[in-house]
């Protein structure tokens, strides 16, 4: 089998080291890339890759130029190894890098090499490798100089911590061995506040931005819980490599092959993996079992079909400080897989993205890659299942696509379509480059630390714009809620206005009411009522004989029913207007239910009640007034009822008493008479005062009724509990996080 080497683009990982040596490396992070070319197609790969690499093949220890392995066309070579953080001497363009690396270069270079040299040969027995790797001394020696050199005071203590956690394989280290620096504490507090703020913001109104905000908010909370907070608490915790990609891309096979053991089930059915499997060195198991990372997943020792579990397996071949997580696919029919994969990817220190020759142009994974890039996650790619004859073309094309999407810096490994060995593993020589790359990474704690810090910093940096988006969405919510309330207010204000108009122009008195009034006054019964009780008695006798209701009562009924009809009419109109106004608004439409199209069920009753209450009040008012005006009434056996009725009528007529046309013909005389009668009793000014008070009281009651109607809508927006606080909280919390991040300067640069 032939293998292709991997071309490793300058990777973010190696940012620290390689920047120095790679002037032409396009990548800002200044990373080295390595290319290994297959014997067959080594002719071209070089051009696409800007690779220069430090070739750290144990065979030839001295770092070599990238060109070298290619030219050699050694079928065995594949590797290239990234980097050693400390050792690369370099004048890098990145100031941060310079700071840390320039001083340290001389010393670490040698020390660093120690572990490398310890490796027996390019394809070592797994066991041998491991034994070599974790030697505490070697690791410590690497780290120490760095720590010593570290210019940033804030970071220093962490660096010091690192060797302990990483290097000590045997005991389960205490979760927080050393007091973290104050900046870390501040950042952790800021993150907790941010988490609370995100959790506190909800987006109850259906808006274009809300759905997105809910999703992003949930994923941010998940990321904070799953990754950011635990990672910040333990910057030295093992590096978690999440192996993600499309269904059928061979993720499980790859993980199995990397750890040389069938830890995750591979198969032909899609999707194969449904619950994630985490593989780490035995020494790191404790950390992953503790469950600080990805706390939502239940740890299980053996394979499980439940997607909410995390199977943790130890693999002796794997060096300490590095763990692989075999994630479910991102694009199969199983919806849960996609969500889980996204969650796991958000918790990755390094995302090993696996795609295939048939898949590399698929849209879904590229969307995720773009997301990961924006989030600053360190990415490495594996192009799997490549037909040997097409390797060059596909690799080049993929590289172009990567470059076009600003991902040119990510290391790319190409694996050919191959037959698996008896255990279902990819042959070691095929997977060698990738394997070695990880071995290097595992061995080099400063490189690991750089990866961790870069991803962490990127994730923290990406929080701010994401949270700004959430804050905007929260603002949108508040604005929308206000707009909705405004629409309701307008609808019911119109309704009230109609009532005011209806009362002001006195038209309510026309028609039937006016006719009855005429009857009432015209027959002289009113006068009789005023004069003595005998009149009343006679009315009663007449009504008893004729079966007709008393004129006075008749008039009252008409007035009541007209007022009630008016109120029902305006309330119905307002409900309709409010409904239509909300329906035109996406958030409003979602809050509506059919019953809101109509006024409330009890409206006729409450309108009825309103009018009767008002009449009661008016009667009381008249009674009060009449006691004062008794002198004017001159002892007439005066029926409060009739006067109260008259006052009610005056309410409508006094303000608009301009006799015109028909009014003159039909009712003017009687209206004048009524006016006169009342004036005679109460005095002109008193009548007007009474009328106004009665009118105002009626309008007040109507206003209350309409407010109650409007509340059916506004309580729906109020129930969402929206105010501007969440947006402000979010912005403040995000700013705090940003400040703390800048202060902590994880990647060594203050920006």
């Amino acid at each position, binding site marked *: 089998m032939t293998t292709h080497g991997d071309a490793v683009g300058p990777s973010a990982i190696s940012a620290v080291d390689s920047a120095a040596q790679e002037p032409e490396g396009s990548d800002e992070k200044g990373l080295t890339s390595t290319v290994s070319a297959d014997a067959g197609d080594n002719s071209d790969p070089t051009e696409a890759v800007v690779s220069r690499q430090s070739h750290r093949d144990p065979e030839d220890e001295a770092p070599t130029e990238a060109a070298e392995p290619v030219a050699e066309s050694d079928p065995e070579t594949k590797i290239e190894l990234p980097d050693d953080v400390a050792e690369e001497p370099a004048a890098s363009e990145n100031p941060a890098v310079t700071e840390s690396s320039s001083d340290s270069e001389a010393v670490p270079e040698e020390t660093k090499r120690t572990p490398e040299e310890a490796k027996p040969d390019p394809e070592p027995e797994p066991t041998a490798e491991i034994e070599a790797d974790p030697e505490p001394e070697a690791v410590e020696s690497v780290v120490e100089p760095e720590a010593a050199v570290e210019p940033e005071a804030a970071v220093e203590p962490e660096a010091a911590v690192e060797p302990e956690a990483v290097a000590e394989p045997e005991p389960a280290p205490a979760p927080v061995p050393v007091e973290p620096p104050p900046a870390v504490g501040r950042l952790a507090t800021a993150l907790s506040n941010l988490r609370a703020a995100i959790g506190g913001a909800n987006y109850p109104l259906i808006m274009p931005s809300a759905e997105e905000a809910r999703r992003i908010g949930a994923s941010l909370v998940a990321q904070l819980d799953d990754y950011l907070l635990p990672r910040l608490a333990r910057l030295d915790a093992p590096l978690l490599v999440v192996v993600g990609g499309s269904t*059928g891309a061979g993720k499980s096979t790859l993980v199995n092959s990397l750890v040389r053991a069938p830890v995750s089930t591979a198969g*032909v059915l899609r999707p194969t993996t449904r619950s994630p499997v985490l593989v780490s060195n035995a020494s790191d198991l404790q950390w992953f079992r503790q469950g600080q990372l990805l706390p939502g997943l239940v740890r299980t020792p053996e394979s499980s079909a439940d997607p909410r579990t995390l199977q943790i397996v130890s693999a002796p071949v794997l060096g300490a400080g590095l763990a692989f997580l075999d994630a479910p696919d991102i694009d199969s*029919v199983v919806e849960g897989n996609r969500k889980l994969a996204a969650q796991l990817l958000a918790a990755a220190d390094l995302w090993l993205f696996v795609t295939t020759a048939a898949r590399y*142009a698929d849209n*879904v994974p590229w969307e995720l890659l773009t997301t990961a890039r924006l989030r600053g996650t360190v990415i490495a790619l594996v192009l799997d299942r490549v037909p040997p004859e097409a390797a060059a073309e596909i690799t080049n094309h993929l590289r172009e696509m990567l470059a076009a999407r600003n991902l040119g810096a990510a290391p790319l490994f190409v694996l050919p379509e191959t037959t698996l060995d008896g255990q279902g593993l990819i042959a070691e020589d095929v997977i060698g480059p990738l394997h070695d790359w990880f071995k290097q990474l595992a061995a080099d704690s400063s490189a690991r630390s750089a990866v961790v810090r870069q991803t962490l910093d990127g994730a923290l940096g990406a929080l701010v714009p994401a949270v700004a988006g959430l804050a905007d969405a929260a603002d949108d919510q508040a604005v929308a809620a206000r707009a909705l309330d405004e629409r309701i207010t307008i609808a019911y204000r119109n309704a009230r206005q109609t*009532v005011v108009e209806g009362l002001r122009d006195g038209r309510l008195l026309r028609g039937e009411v006016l006719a009855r009034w005429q009857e009432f006054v015209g027959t002289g019964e009113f006068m009789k009522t005023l004069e003595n009780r005998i009149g009343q008695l006679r009315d009663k006798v007449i009504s008893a004989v004729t079966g007709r209701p008393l004129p006075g009562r008749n008039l009252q009924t008409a007035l009541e029913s007209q007022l009630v*009809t008016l109120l029902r009419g305006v309330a119905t109109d307002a409900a309709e207007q409010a409904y239509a106004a909300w329906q035109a608004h996406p958030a409003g439409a979602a809050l509506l239910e059919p019953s809101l199209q109509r006024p409330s069920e009890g409206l006729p009753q409450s309108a009825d009640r309103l009018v009767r209450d008002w009449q009661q009040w008016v009667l009381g008012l008249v009674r009060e007034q009449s006691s004062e005006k008794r002198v004017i009434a001159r002892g007439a056996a005066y029926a409060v009822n009739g006067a109260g009725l008259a006052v009610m009528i005056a309410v409508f007529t006094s303000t608009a008493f301009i006799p015109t046309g*028909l009014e003159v013909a039909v009712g003017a005389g009687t209206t004048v008479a009524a006016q006169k009668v009342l004036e005679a009793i109460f005095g002109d000014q008193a009548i007007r005062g009474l009328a106004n008070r009665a009118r105002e009281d009626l309008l007040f009651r109507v206003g209350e009724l309409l407010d109650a109607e409007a509340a059916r809508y506004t309580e729906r927006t109020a129930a969402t509990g929206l105010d501007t606080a969440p947006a402000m909280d979010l912005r403040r919390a995000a700013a705090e996080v940003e400040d703390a991040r800048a202060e902590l300067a994880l990647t060594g640069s203050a920006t």
Partner: protein
Amino acid sequence: MSLVEKVRGVLTSTDGRIDAQELVQRLESLSKFLRLVDPYLPDADLVAAHTLVERAGTRLALSRDHTVVALAGSTGSGKSSLFNALARLKLSPVGVRRPTTGAAHACVWGPLEPANQLLDWVGVLPRQRFIRESALDGDDEVALRGLVLLDLPDFDSIERSHRLEVDRLLGLVDEVIWVVDPQKYGDRILHQAYLSQFSTHAGVTIVVLNQADRLSTHDTEVVLGDLRRLLEEDGLSGAPVLATSAKQPGMLAELRETLEKTVADRQAALRRLAGDLESVSEPLTTMIGPPAAEDEVDRATVRQLTEALAASAGVGAVADAAAGSYRHRAAAATGWPVLRGLGRLRPDPLRRLHLGAKPKTDSVSTDIVPRTSLPEADAAQKSAIGLSVRAVAGRAAAPLPPVWASALTNASRSRLGDLPDALDRAIAKTDVGADRTPLWWRGVGLLQWLFVAAAVAGLGWLIIGYGIRMLALPELHYPKLGQAPLPTLLLLGGLVAGVLLWLLLKPLVEWGARRARHRAEQQLRAGVTDVAREYVVAPVREVLNAYAQAREALTTVRSE
């Protein structure tokens, strides 16, 4: 072999055959349905149906002897390889770069010409059309004559334009072969965005697991089983699932046979349209519910409406005026002539409303109905009208699906603005009996005059007698009736009889006035009811009518 195949194909599928005439009829019904509901229902819900009607019309007008079959699938599943393998020619470029195919390619078995129009319509560029007809082939390809095979671009790559192209083409082709491969057969986009959308098209869907040569025989079976399970979840359990490989010609035989059968059947286009009809008409059924009688607007609701309209039109006032007018005129005609003149000082109540005075109808302005002087409706009356109009719409909408509610409400209000004038016109045109003069009035009037005449005669006689006596002329001897002298009787009797008659007739006049009121009210209400029917109920009925017809049309569409 091909002939046998053809015969077998025809025989086996007779039960499932789709009659073109029947399909056309169903499509016409759909078109009718759309015409009926278009003015009333939201456009967004009808777009798919409109598209189908248009597309079906075009497709059926084009060659029905050709079957357009598309190869669709994810990028890298081997659509182009399969296309070339089926054509046995290298027509569509195959490659490892993804996505490979960017534009649809077509291969026509048989002469190009009639298929060309079809391809124009489908939208395959002329330079991407190929003919699979060659003398060298002999009869090998005869069985596939009439096949138009399309190689579509992918739908899941980063090239979004490909997906748009696929979505467009999938709407036009007759049959779709979904090409999946062992790596991608479980992709979400494939199942969710495509296969499950074709659940009503199982008859024109073939799913092939391509690149089966990459799997062992056992694995192939396992994967095929899993694929069938997924397809069942998509609702495509009836679709054939085949394993193919472009690299091993043997593995194509089954697919080829299926295609031959399809082509021989000439049914795919009809099946496709029938499937479309099924899926398009499915959501339409939610717009149609139980039957709604046209007279769904029941009497009670109309009565309530009439009541409200009558109140706002002042029917009560006019009826009262009619009664008043009756009394007024009765007094004028039958009152005691001596006091009759007093009544004339008051105007006729009907005239006060500008009613009852029939204008002289001249030939020029016969239609002009003068405006009455009735007051405009007040706020409460307007509210009452609004409420009852709503009630009409609500009552009509009750049995119908909710989507019709707004159409009915709008219809009920469509002529609301014209109502006041129409009501006034109806009132003005109604005969409220202002000109009616009962016969007995004349008799009584004559009698009254006779009484007056008698009284006058008696008075005159007495005066003459008195004068003669004053002049000491020989006394007149009044004839006596019993003890009383005749002139005195005449005078007193005339006066008393007149007054008595007036008084006696009062109840009669009152009764007549009540009758006149009642009659006027009846007439006015009839007029108002007509207005209510014409201006409120009729537009609502129109909608109900459209609903009933649409319901019928949809039943035809859904009949299978």
